[in-house]
């Protein structure tokens, strides 16, 4: 008896795997930080109507998350 999943299941699994690799892959911190960036900007822009602050905070947070992920890749000092 074959235990191989059916074609639709395999296609669905492949589709899910592609998006996982595409969005998360080996840098889950970038996926998480993007969600945090959106949440923080939404809170600033919607809750307090702080439009000007949001326009400044959004690029700053994006650069900050890039800095964090690059720093994580630096070799550790022995």
């Amino acid at each position: 008896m074959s235990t191989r999943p059916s074609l639709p299941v395999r296609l669905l699994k492949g589709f899910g795997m592609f998006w996982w690799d595409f969005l998360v892959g080996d840098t889950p911190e970038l996926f998480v930080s993007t969600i945090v960036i959106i949440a923080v900007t939404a809170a600033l822009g919607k809750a307090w109507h702080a439009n000007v602050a949001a326009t400044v905070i959004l690029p700053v947070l994006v650069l900050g998350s890039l800095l964090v992920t690059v720093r994580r890749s630096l070799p550790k000092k022995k």
Partner: protein
Amino acid sequence: MIAASLSSGVVVLVSAVFLASAVEMVEALTIVFAVGHTRGWRSAFEGVAVALVALTALVAAFGPALIHIPLNWLRLIVGGVLLVFGLQWLRKAVLRASGLKAKHDEDAIYQETVAELQGLDGSVNRDKIAFTMAFKGVFLEGLEVVITVLTLGTSAHRLTLAAVTAAIAVVLVGIVGVIVSKQLSTVPENLMKTTVGILLVAYGTFWVGEGLSIKWPGNDGFLAALVGIYALGTWLMVQGTTSAAKAVAA
């Protein structure tokens, strides 16, 4: 003023789509050349053709569906995807520019693919292996082009412009590849990837803001400012990372 902001939005869109499509085409072409030279062109071309049909079917299935998503949600989701995708590109570009990651070497990838194919059984599954390799190479790289075109094109209401730009990039790289008849190892890929990363992150930031109903100063014209901010930030990060890497090594 309106013309200036309109043109800066279009320039960023066209540049991002063109460069991203060209980079993906170079990568796909490298795999197809390795398969064609090693296992024969017929199976390689069959793999390419089926991958193109599959990509067309995907676009036909999911492309029109995007139009039915409310615009602010579409821009927020697209912006988020572009931010993640662009930041991944920029991270790799910064690490490569500062010497912490090996540069994407098409010659090495070509040789690795050839060695992998030569090591496989050449008598029984010959066509199947060549077909699968060519299909996977074109489908996966092509899928990234499709996502870039659909996300950028739909959210900017310039899907036709994005699709035509991508087609021109793919055809141009294809023609150059066929003329030189080898993988395009001389293309300054890291510079192109850095530029694409900056453009994708700038667009991602812009659309996330639009999706959250932020009013950008100067509307579309602010895209150019975002590109400048991220280009400067990336340059500073490359300088800092290079110094940090040297300090650790010392």
